């Protein structure tokens, strides 16, 4: 019974921390953007403007929530949920830290270790396209619809490349369990180079990274909401909390994507010489969570950095990059990985 209580506490804690990161990210986004554009950024609310997200949240909650006259009310209302919920669920398979022994129970710092591991993550993230599509269609606005159609085409195209990149990683590590994948990356080569998958599969990592930007609708792939041509894209007709949920969903998807990239390619919560993968002490577990947080944070800052550095792709360039560059490259990578895996039988 007490192990069930511990599990419930673990799930609540992971979820609570996960929900606190988007406001922090919004603050970071505005500060980094200001730094890149040689401005100061938010600095009025609290010291260094640190309370700005709180002010934003109060503003968004108290704003009038307008539902336009000709929208399809049911789909218009549920669409933001379709963006936010999958982003939150997909985090469930990410291992966030080393095992820890508490009151005689060994606790895995991962909400669920499914038989299908990474495939579950891919399946759940593919659901978030519905939020954009339904929201766009239900808004009954031509700009919204354009945004929705663009996002549908974009997500389907890049999901293929992402899936193929993941298959290469699965083949070289021989497991779909994210937990085992992290353990497999915990040793070192030549005594100093960590055995991270990014060194086995550099091409798969680059493809996955580009596809991750496209899947989360971040610049340079934010065609669905291109402000200069589509007003606001799929969320043109949204206001108040419903708009905030779209916004939060985007940031939560970014967090999940960063966490999965760290787990797949950068050794998850392990760091040779700092975290002992097989120890179960509380101190070691805390250290591993910190390592995981720093790695994920680095990716999140990278996401923001790219957004304020690169211009947006044109739509035909986006499609060409997806179908004519990334997918052939991913297939080639898959082919060579397969040959390398079967080298003993072939040669």
């Amino acid at each position, binding site marked *: 019974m007490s192990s069930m209580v511990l599990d419930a506490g673990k799930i609540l804690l992971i979820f609570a921390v996960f929900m606190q990161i988007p406001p922090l990210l919004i603050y970071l986004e505005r500060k980094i953007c200001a730094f890149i554009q040689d401005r100061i950024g938010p600095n009025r609310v609290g010291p260094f403007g640190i309370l700005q997200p709180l002010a934003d949240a109060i503003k968004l909650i108290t704003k009038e929530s307008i539902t336009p006259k000709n929208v399809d009310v049911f789909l218009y209302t549920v669409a933001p949920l379709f963006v936010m919920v999958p982003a939150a669920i997909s985090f469930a398979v990410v291992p966030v830290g080393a095992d820890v022994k508490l009151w005689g129970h060994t606790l895995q710092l991962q909400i669920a270790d499914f038989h299908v591991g990474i495939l579950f993550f891919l399946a759940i993230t593919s659901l978030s396209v519905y939020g954009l599509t339904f929201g766009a269609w239900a808004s009954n606005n031509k700009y919204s619809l354009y945004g929705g159609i663009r996002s549908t085409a974009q*997500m389907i195209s890049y999901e293929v490349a992402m899936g193929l990149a993941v298959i290469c990683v699965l083949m070289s590590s021989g497991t779909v369990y994210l937990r085992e994948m992290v353990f497999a990356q915990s040793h070192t080569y030549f005594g100093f180079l960590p055995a991270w998958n990014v060194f086995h599969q550099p091409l798969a990592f680059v493809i996955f990274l580009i596809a991750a930007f496209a899947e989360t609708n971040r610049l340079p792939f934010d065609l669905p909401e291109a402000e200069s041509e589509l007003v606001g894209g799929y969320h043109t007709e949204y206001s108040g909390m419903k708009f905030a949920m779209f916004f939060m969903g985007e940031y939560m998807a970014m967090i999940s994507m960063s966490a999965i990239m760290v787990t797949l390619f950068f050794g998850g919560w392990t760091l040779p010489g700092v975290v002992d993968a097989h120890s179960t002490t509380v101190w070691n577990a805390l250290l591993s969570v910190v390592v995981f947080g720093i790695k994920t944070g680095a990716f999140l800052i990278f996401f923001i950095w790219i957004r304020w550095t690169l211009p947006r792709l044109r739509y035909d360039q986006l499609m060409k990059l997806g179908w004519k560059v990334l997918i052939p490259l991913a297939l080639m990578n898959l082919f060579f990985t397969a040959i390398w895996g079967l080298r003993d039988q072939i040669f």
Partner: protein
Amino acid sequence: MYEIMWLILGILSVISAILVVSRINPVYSALYLMLFFASVSGLFAFLGASFVAVTQLFIYIGAIIVLFLFVIMMLNFEELKKLQRPPLFSPLKGLILSLALFGLLCVPIYFGLPSAHPRHLPADFGSAKWIARDMYIQYPFAIELASVLIIAALAGAFVIARIGKKAKNS
């Protein structure tokens, strides 16, 4: 607990399947089709077939219904509302057909279908490794045949589209 969840998912799948065909607005049909696939995926997960459950989510919900929606969003609904559906089946024929299907379903249930409750399954049943072993070591020929069939269908669709284009141009 297990039986209750099983019952809820089963009822949900039947209701959503009925709603798919009874909605006039095709976007809602697609929404309920999605709900149907999600509940079927849940049923698979409860049977221990987690790989099949996830593929159900990934392929049917994540890709195929998205493509449906992509086409549906380009339709003109005002035209669609004017459309009078001709009755495909008379009620009598429909009744006979559904009774026949029901009878067909009753036969295996009556003659002892193995219980839906997974009792004596190995620990990794339904995992990716298990499926891969079955597919590529036990039945590689069937898999290859299926893939050839799919490529043939793809090429066929392409050829048909090209012929239509040529006829329009000339």
